[in-house]
């Protein structure tokens, strides 16, 4: 089971004119793994992620997501992934229940499935009484947890999280990561970009992007050993200092 690959990328590149945003990156992600995708702002994380999500065509290289090709099978890829953007992606003027209904609905869940899913989801988040509350009225931490749960409401093979915990207090971040662990133990692969190096420690494996390349890849413990560093923070700083590209 652990060796089943859900994401493979080989020499994947994206050019915008002369600017090489992503420069021949290669990596593999195992099923059920929590894969941290680190890098400074402008390192090319978002571009790489957009290519994997089928939002953006690669310039060259190969990649498969959930077994589908990113060039030809973007439709199938889209059915098998969940996505949560850095700006939480819920509709503020809809209630919690309506948001769940909408996102479950556009992934083609049946009415019965939607009902069951929203009941179990609300129970897990302890929000049963707030089904009819507008999302606008929720605290930020709640919104983020809700957004994550909704991103996996259709049981995707992989969920992509783009800096999901920006601006959230440490306690809520901890709770958020508990949700991620739970999803991972249910077999959902988690592909997460983050700025917080303490979060990098929570990942099974991380990659660090510098100037569009992947400069380091491995389990946090082995990366720290390789770079003779005590924390992921130090590893990151060592690599990021080499960056030529600025924001």
């Amino acid at each position, binding site marked *: 089971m652990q060796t089943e690959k859900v994401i493979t990328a080989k020499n994947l590149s994206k050019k915008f004119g002369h600017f090489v945003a992503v420069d021949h990156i290669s990596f593999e992600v195992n099923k059920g793994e929590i894969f941290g995708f680190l890098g400074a702002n402008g390192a090319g994380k978002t571009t790489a992620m957009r290519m994997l999500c089928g*939002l953006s065509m690669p310039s060259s290289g190969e990649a498969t997501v959930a077994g589908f090709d990113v060039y030809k099978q973007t439709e199938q890829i889209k059915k098998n992934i969940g996505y949560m*953007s850095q700006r939480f*992606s819920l509709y503020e003027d*809809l209630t919690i229940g*309506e948001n769940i209904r909408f*996102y479950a609905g*556009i*992934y083609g869940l049946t009415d019965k499935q939607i009902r069951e899913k929203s009941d179990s989801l609300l129970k897990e988040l302890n929000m049963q009484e707030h089904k009819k509350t507008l999302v606008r009225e929720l605290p930020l931490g709640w919104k983020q947890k809700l957004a994550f749960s909704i991103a996996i409401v259709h049981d995707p093979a992989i969920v992509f999280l783009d800096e999901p915990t920006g601006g959230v207090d440490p306690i809520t971040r901890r709770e958020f990561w508990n949700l991620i662990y739970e999803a991972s133990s249910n077999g959902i692969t988690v592909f997460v970009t983050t700025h917080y190096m303490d979060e990098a420690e929570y990942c099974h494996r991380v990659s660090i992007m510098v100037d569009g390349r992947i400069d380091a890849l491995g389990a946090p413990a082995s990366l720290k050993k390789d770079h003779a560093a005590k924390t992921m923070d130090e590893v990151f700083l060592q690599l990021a200092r080499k960056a030529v590209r600025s924001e």
Partner: protein
Amino acid sequence: MKQFLIFVKKEWLHIWRDSRTLFILVWMPIVQIVLYGFALTNEVKNSTIAIFDQSKDAATTAISNEISASRYFKLVKNVHSYKEIEATFKQGKIRMAIVFPNNFSNDLLHSNHAQVQLIADASDPNTANTLTNYASSIISDYQQRLNNEQQLPYAINTQLRMLYNPELKGAYNFVPGVMALVLMLVCAMMTSIAIVKEKEMGTMEVILVSPLKPFLIIIAKTIPYLLVSVLNIASILLLSVYVLGVPITGNLWLLIWESILFTVTSLSVGILISNSAKTQQVAMFTSLMSLFLPTLLFSGFLFPVENMPLPLQVISNIVPAKWYYIIVKAVMIKGLGFSYVWKETLVLVGMTLLLLIISIRKFKTRLA
């Protein structure tokens, strides 16, 4: 299909929750029709006038009575000198003065040539024009009757007949104009804001990652506004028929189909704007500047396009509202059939296709 309907339903909820916007969308056409129909009309009713009658004979009395009895004028003052006329004008009490010279009746009967002077407040040139026209026609009416009585052999009668709008009602002009304006605003502005809002909130990204086709997303977002527009068309037509008394002389279905065509044109303009706008404010201002003003100025409903300098006339051709305005006037007011408006219809269809192709292509490249 089911996903599509869920999307449309969500879009409805957005409109429904934002009750203030909904209120504006539904009431704006009604308020505009009432405003334009009653307040901003070109019609002249009960305009205040003064009469300076130096002759005070049978003919001047008869003309004065006729003028003050007409529904266009209201005699507020009999003055006794030119100075007084000027003073009254300056006080703003009158919009026109009528001056009969000495021996008016005498001149009229014996030399068959009498003069009357109309002095109008031309600071508002349109009204001044209309007023003097009305007054002249009342006076020439009187003269004709006099001629008939005397049976002069070679009297020439000029008879004016106002086609399609015999009472020269302003509403005949404004109803088609307001329809164009409202549809442009509701469809183009509201859709562009709705799409840009999703971009701004970050929800657009998430929807694009979903299996929904981008094209369907756009269509789903426009459907609710299309429905609101149909509601607006209905309320405008009902108001114009039952309140303003402007009948629909042509084929109602033709009118409705042409309106739906124009709605689609406006929606594609909205999608185009949403492609380039990054924030809701930008979308709103772009819509106002590129739609509201040109529609108001170039559609021909406030200012006749034929009177504009040539470059402006050329520009007016790219304003979709101009063509729709021509069509609505032809079908609704003149009662003409499709064979008279097919050219304008073709122009609108062409514009719509072009806009749709550009905006969908732009929408796609944004994703790549």
